[in-house]
């Protein structure tokens, strides 16, 4: 299971970022969210959400002696893992990377994405 992104549908409302931080941390802070909307609000106005692609081969964990299945369930990661992500899909804030744990199987970001830019793919 992973979250698919169709960027042309993104309206730029940031609700995905807000509910991500709220669900995981109990507070709202779009900087502490695993999904991130890059807004080109003064240019093309096409906004680009990005989120972990749930790669089978996790380049983000390469060189680490860790249990991948356990790490997949964690939300706050070390910032160095973001540097290893080939898709730059792990947002970093104040040294921490924020990783999509799929909210345990029911991603809240997808629930609030009314334009349908974020959907669940099996």
């Amino acid at each position, binding site marked *: 299971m992973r979250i698919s992104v169709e960027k*042309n549908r993104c309206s730029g*409302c*940031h609700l995905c970022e807000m509910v991500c931080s709220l669900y995981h941390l109990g507070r709202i802070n779009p900087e502490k969210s695993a999904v991130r909307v890059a807004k080109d*609000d003064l240019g093309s*106005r096409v906004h680009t959400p990005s989120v972990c692609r749930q790669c089978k081969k996790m380049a983000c964990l390469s060189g680490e002696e860790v249990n991948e299945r356990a790490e997949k369930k964690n939300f706050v990661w070390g910032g160095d893992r973001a540097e290893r992500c080939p898709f730059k899909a792990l947002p970093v804030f104040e040294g921490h990377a924020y990783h999509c744990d799929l909210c345990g199987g029911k991603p809240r970001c997808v629930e*609030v994405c009314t334009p349908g830019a974020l959907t669940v793919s099996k």
Partner: protein
Amino acid sequence: MITDRKIAYVNLSDRSVRIESIPVEVRRKFLGGRGINMHVLSQHYTRELDPFSPDNPLIFGAGLLSGTLGFGARMSISAKSPESGHIGDTNIGGDFAAEVVKAGFSHLVIFGKSSELVYLFVHDGRIEIRDARSLKGIDTVETQRQIRSDLGEPKAQVACIGLAGENLVRFSPVRTGVKSAAGRTGMGAVMGSKNLKAVAARGTLDIEIADPDRYLTYYLKTLHKLMSAKWAQALSKDGTPLLFRACNALGFLSVRNNQLTTVGEAGKSLHAEALHRHSSGMLSCYACPIHCRHRYDIKEGTYAGTKGEGPEYGSIGSLGPKLGILDLDGIICLCELANHYGLDTMSMGSYLAWVMELYQRGIITRDTTGLTLEWGNVDAIIELIHQIAHRKGFGDIVAEGRFAHRVFGDASLDYLLEIKDFPIEMTDERLPKSFALGMATASRGACHMRSRASIDVLGLPEEILKKVYGGPVSNRLASYDGKGRMVWYHEVINAASDALGICRFQSVFSSPNGLGYRVYSRLLELAAGLKMTPSEVRAVGERICSMERMLLVRDGMSREDDRLPGRYFEPILEGPAKGHVIHQGEFDRMLDEYYRLHGWNKNGVPKPATLRRLGLDA
């Protein structure tokens, strides 16, 4: 908690900044946004206060729920208005309010006048005053780009003015993003008078939530219910242009300065569907699930290469049929020009329509205008907009808004359709009586956003209306019965929504299924930890309305100022609303009902008992 967001007082004359907490009792009385703005404004508002004086406080106020999952994240901007000379208050969407909140602030109160052009930078608990001399004359979109670059903050949100605001054009708005505008009442000109080019915000602070789990659950339930409403779905697809069809078909459109009220079949060129050929998607303000604005790109024709967002129905009407223009692409071009210069599309449309009718009637001629101001002449209007922003030629006169009557002569005011020295907009209210009353009573002068009961157009069963409004209301658009109640209800809930930062389109505006006091009360408790009953939230709306009314009383206004333009007492000459007119006696009956519900006397002045109940000073 979000109620801990601060209020900052900035004096641009001596460059001092004072940051204070907002006491919880002030929050409970006024919440935030427009509520606290009016609370602050009322401490400084006098009849004599010159809107361009350094003593005029310019107040930026984020709604209390802006920055949360709040169903929009709006901000009110208030001061004494240089456009009308009375209450200045306007509301803006986009992402700016949320960024101010994320930076730790709720309200900014700006006094004084800087000796040079400056901008404010609000970030994570701090406020800096920065040099903006290099931004002089730069348009509103490029200003935002350059400030982001100057700060090295690509995510900064910027509210700014363009050339028109710098030049004190009386109807210049505060702008953010590509098209969001705190449009009416000339708050951009107040910024210009203070030599304040922009306010930039960047925030990364947590917004703490009182009861996160129950809040998220409640939010999702409310969101899904809201989005299942037909109104929300239609708005998500077509945006506000969907309102044009009914307006034209029923005959309450302003055409050629309200000489007509429909353009008939020709109006198809402005139906919502016509915009789809340019649209490549829908965009949202911060925290909005509805996404009602088009992202557009005109690819061919005279205006090829014009790109932007919107346009809204209010702008289409104001710069379209009101000026005799039915060419959608031409209207979009005018909107874009207005947005870049920082000119309010709606008020400007009203003043342009006024001077075009003066031209039609020979009251002013080409000798004065230097332009052929015939109805529908897009090229002449483009030239005039350039002149207005640059304050050159005839544009320098039009830039004065209603005060241009000093040049045209007092008799010219017979053709400026205005209420409380503030011009009516893109519609004609002779048919829909609730709309007419709402325009007459709006505290900032003629304005549909204070109370427009779009619900009235739907002709819903009267049992449903009775349930929504708490008393009998006719479901006929042309009827006066119960419309005083309808307007009172919408004024109050809209004031509460503005205090919370919630968008009109998500509240009870065009659909009875919109959010109401019960939802507001619940959101306040779960998000902000503020326990207030639905009736206490309603009382905030009532308090704001009565407080604004008291400001108008300070200006010497009363019942006789809650009146409609002379043209509304002449029957509509043709079209589907032919013969509709306002009858003074019936209008007075609505007004009496409206005053009674607000707790105001027959002169429209809040009664001492009302002020006591609401905890307001006389």
